């Protein structure tokens, strides 16, 4: 028998296949990536596609900004607009853990697929236009952005299960997004102002792990190779680890924690929840 997780997961993908939000996001994302790639050096008086290395540096923030928002919103809509589907799934001979994993995987495939498409189509156009130089940097940025999508998909599932009502969940999801995009940096900055230099580095490193968007951004920048773009946390990470590889492993480990913890918490909640 085919795994119930895969059957449920594929069903989710089929449901989202024609979802207007998913299609709109992919088109918007691809369009913005193309714009950034084409007009990224307009201030230097140059208009036209840049190579992959420059494009990668330009689109890191775009991915870090849009992908978490997309994952959070799609996750909440998926879980709470069709919450009644859970009723039929949980009365099937499938454990709740498998039901949740199936829905999560389906959602994940959709979010990651839409994000990869949003990055991938412009990538093909750039490659056909000016060649493939620096393409590995671009692929690395896509990879870390997709990991970011994985993290925020897990968070969206957890938020949906805890909030139960769509409006509440949307409010929380937007709050989480604003927190990680805007407030977290401000809070970290304010905190570091009052710290003594001997614990500053430790705080910066721990602080970096507290924000998956920052981790993804630093990991991408490590691949693109722009230490001057790191910011204090990234620079400290490089200084402490001494190599891009070690720094990347540290960041990846941090992201993995962010992947696993929300999902584990969601499974814990769902197994005990009265629907």
């Amino acid at each position, binding site marked *: 028998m085919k795994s119930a997780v895969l059957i449920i997961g594929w069903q989710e993908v089929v449901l989202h296949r024609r979802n207007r939000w998913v299609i709109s996001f992919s088109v918007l994302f691809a369009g913005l990536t193309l714009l950034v790639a084409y007009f990224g050096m307009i201030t230097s008086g140059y208009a036209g596609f840049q190579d992959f290395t420059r494009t990668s540096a330009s689109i890191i923030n775009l991915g870090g900004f849009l992908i978490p928002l997309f994952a959070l919103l799609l996750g909440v809509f998926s879980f709470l607009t069709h919450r009644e589907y859970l009723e039929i799934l949980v009365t099937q*001979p499938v454990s709740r853990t498998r039901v949740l994993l199936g829905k999560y995987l389906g959602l994940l495939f959709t979010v990651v697929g839409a994000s990869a498409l949003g990055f991938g189509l412009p990538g093909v156009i750039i490659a056909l236009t000016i060649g493939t130089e620096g393409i590995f940097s671009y692929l690395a940025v896509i990879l870390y952005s997709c990991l970011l999508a994985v993290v925020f998909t897990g968070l969206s599932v957890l938020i949906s299960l805890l909030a139960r009502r769509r409006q509440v969940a949307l409010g929380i999801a937007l709050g989480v997004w604003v927190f990680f995009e805007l407030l977290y940096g401000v809070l970290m900055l304010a905190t570091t102002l009052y710290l003594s230099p001997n614990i500053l580095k430790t705080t910066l490193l721990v602080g970096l792990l507290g924000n998956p968007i920052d981790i993804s951004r630093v990991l991408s920048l490590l691949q693109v190779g722009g230490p001057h773009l790191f910011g204090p946390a990234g620079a400290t990470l490089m200084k402490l680890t001494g190599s891009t590889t070690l720094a990347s492993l540290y960041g990846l480990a941090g992201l993995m924690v962010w992947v696993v913890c929300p999902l584990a918490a969601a499974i814990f909640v769902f197994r005990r929840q009265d629907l």
Partner: protein
Amino acid sequence: MIQVENLTKRYGRYTAINDVSFEVEKGEILGLLGPNGAGKTTTMRVLAGFFPASEGRARVAGYDVFEEPLEVKRRVGYLPENPPLYTEMTVDSFLSFVARIKGVPRSDLGERLEYSKECCGLSDNGGRLIKHLSKGYRQRVGLAQALIHNPEVLILDEPTIGLDPNQISEVRELIKSLGGDHTIILSTHILPEVSMTCGRVIIINEGEIVAVDTPENLTRQLSGGQRIELELAGRVDQLPTLLGGVSGVQTVGSLEETNGRIRVWVESVPGTEIRHLLARTLVESGFELYQIHAEGRTLEEVFKELTTKEAAA
């Protein structure tokens, strides 16, 4: 086939069902009857493995609902009150999806699909999108998904709600035809549905069972005897003594005399038939008997009385 012992379910401080116990035999059709909010859906959801109970035990087909939920779910087909269906799918693709989740072997899939569609009158609708189906047909799809893995037990929550009279009749016939091969629990607040489809009925009110029996017995035992109305002519002064002396008469009501006709009612001892005794006694005593009419209480009246009493208490 189903044993429920002291089942209690609480949502926070609210107790939805309290200390509910009952059994269902193999092949039986049991009706859960009660007003809205009585605890019918909660009971069914616990048995279907939708959520656990706060206290108590339940076994289905020999498996504990809480300790072996997957074994129970393999043997249960559940139709929720508003069957959640993937409306963007066709009937065939939805039923195939459910069948695969339920673990129907690929080799049996086609046969099970055709059987459940045929049972539910969906044979000509396999290719239609569910969102284009009427409420009645969606209910049939819900029933078909409950049947697709040929479960031993069917749990049907308000299976005829929202259907038109013809559809109601068809679904009731379908449920009756499924009894015997399947053990069925259905909930309803429509009394005729219980009388027409169920071998036994549990009346549930405010989370507690207030009566369990066959619809006929329930009516008979709880009706407090038959009320018989009489219209006759003769000497009024002799009548109360004469009627009170008939074997099986429990109460003689007040007399009304209009234009030489007397109207009176008597109530019999529960479970006794006294109309023929009354007729013979009255005629032999010189009364002219114009009408004798028994008014048994319906299940509806019994239900109303039981649930109102509970509410008042």
